[in-house]
């Protein structure tokens, strides 16, 4: 039994898929470096990331399968799910045979897995578009912190670039120590760390209070339904919401 181990980057995963093909090997699993569990019966093969090989695979996916499939594997990868690497590998193997029809073969467990990972990631990204809360800093920059389950920063940054092109903003993924920083019509995703009190603009607290009061008043007392509220807005996101601050402590 062979397991391929890659460095955790998307390029690394694509390189692993390239190698499996060119070495005529059939790895049982493709795993990230930090997911290793020693086993007697497994031969571990460490894959060295190669941008050129990764590019070759990605272009082939777009041309020989479909642009949709390329998006599927990228999103499935961003889920950071342990099985994502293996699922993507198996999905592509079927994809080379079936071409773009692979996406309708959803009775295949690997195809379904990739689709469901993609759904999870785009689902969380979609939800996060609403749940992000910017705070105006004294420097005029709007700052928001998030802790999403999946690595969705790259997906959501584009939305805010299109929506509020006139203001500078930072979206900070606290969990992954990454941030999307927007300035002058472009954004970059960079390693980022910041903790400590935010230097808020003096008007900021006033609007936060207005929002908190509004949030409280809009609920109809005779229909209070915390279960429904949590179902739509899971508790783990509350920590970074202005209207439900510190709620994560109750977890």
């Amino acid at each position: 039994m062979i397991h391929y181990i890659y460095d955790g980057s998307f390029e690394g995963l694509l390189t692993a898929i390239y190698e499996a093909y060119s070495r005529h090997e059939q790895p049982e699993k493709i795993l990230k470096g930090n997911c290793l569990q020693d086993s007697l019966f497994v031969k571990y093969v460490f894959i060295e990331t190669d941008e050129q090989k990764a590019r070759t695979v990605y272009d082939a996916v777009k041309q020989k399968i479909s642009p949709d499939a390329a998006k599927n594997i990228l999103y499935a990868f961003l889920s950071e799910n342990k099985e994502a690497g293996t699922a993507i590998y198996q999905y592509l193997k079927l994809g080379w045979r079936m071409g773009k029809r692979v996406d309708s073969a959803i009775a295949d467990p690997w195809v379904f897995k990739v689709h469901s990972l993609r759904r999870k990631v785009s689902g969380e990204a979609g939800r996060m578009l609403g749940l992000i809360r910017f705070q105006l800093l004294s420097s005029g920059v709007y700052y928001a912190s998030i802790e999403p389950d999946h690595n969705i920063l790259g997906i959501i940054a584009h939305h805010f670039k299109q929506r509020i092109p006139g203001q500078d903003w930072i979206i900070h993924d606290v969990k992954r120590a990454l941030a999307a920083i927007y300035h002058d019509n472009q954004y970059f995703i960079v390693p980022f760390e910041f903790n400590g009190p935010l230097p808020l603009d003096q008007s900021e607290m006033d609007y936060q209070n207005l929002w908190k009061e509004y949030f409280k008043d809009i609920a109809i007392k005779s229909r209070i339904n915390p279960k429904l509220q949590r179902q739509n807005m899971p508790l783990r996101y509350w920590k970074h919401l202005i209207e439900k601050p510190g709620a994560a402590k109750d977890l």
Partner: protein
Amino acid sequence: MDLHTKLKILGAAAKYDVSCSSSGSSRKNRDGGLGNASLPGICHSWSDDGRCISLLKILLSNCCVFNCLYCINRASAETPRATFTPTEIAQLTVNFYKRNYIEGLFLSSAVYKNPDHTMELILNTVIKLRKEYRFNGYIHVKAIPGADPLLIEETGKYVDRMSVNIELPSNHGLKLLAPQKNRDSILKPMEFIHTRILQTREEKKLFRSAPSFVPAGQTTQLIVGATMDHDLKILRLSENLYRRFSLKRVYYSAYVPVTRHPNLPDIANPPLLREHRLYQADWLLRFYGFTTTELLDEKRPHLDAELDPKSAWALHNLHLFPVEVNTADYELLVRVPGIGVKSAKRIVMARKHHTIGYETLKRFGVALKRARHFITCRGKYYGERNISLTGLRDLLTSEVARKRNTIPTGEQLTFQALYPHAFTDNDVYTIISGEI
């Protein structure tokens, strides 16, 4: 009066408006202005009652000249009154929007002075937002019944969605509870908006740059449980509205008792379950190809409280089942209890390649607990055999519904409930509240 107090009064006053969706418009960001609209809509938060907050939902004013009995803002109510200026609304909207609290503005209003004056204030506000603040986010406004069509038309050019509240399901109900409103004053603006939308669609075909008019369509809402109207009447009304005016949505809101009056029912809690069943039936009309006459008729004019409407329909049409998932048409698949639009689409897509097994159905999101009684899978039936209609009905009734049935709901026992034939309609209203 400061902004906090105003928002407190006019935010709380707007909470009984149901619609908060921000879907259906793909307004682009223009010339570096602020914002855009997202076609599927975005929810930004969920309030303590579990309803989504997508738009800043406020009244422009709650000073009302009308006196609709079910409304907290009726002229005779003793409640603090306030009115926003257009600038206050614009600043609040823009600053909430920049912080990503909201997707845009939902502006409604009590009838302040008269319908024309109110509509004009609304128009001024949206013009200010669009032109002065260059706001490109979502705007939903109420068209005030009785306002000049010219004002409504002008407003429609700036907003994404407009709605006229139908309020109550029958003209009789309106007479009883909202004497200053009538069916015509509500349907007329609705029809007008519909015609203008169609006209704009034609214009857009000829000139891409033709000005838009209410691109996200119109919606309406009505109150359930404030009058004696039954579900059949309500669903028929919705069906007609969808058909005649191509409404995007009809919202139902369970009547929340805000005051006591001889013409109003005396209930302790809003009829939430009934509201839920109506929504389920509404979905069946819009996405599952059902018609009202299939779901209800004069003999059973009310939706089943214990069963979802689709299961109830299936029990009345057992001769159509079981269906084979590997061959049945899509139209029939979506009619199976436990199979929704998504899972039906998955089944149809996947069976092009393989026949589908029972396990796969589970993965596709089919609720087998219900569906297994109505399908075969590769020819095999997985439901109970030799089961009576009542037995099947019991199996389909959810745990929750069964429990709900055993807990007393706290409704007051009335003579009318005990001897329904001994009273005429008018007696009923007076007796319910005990005033004669």
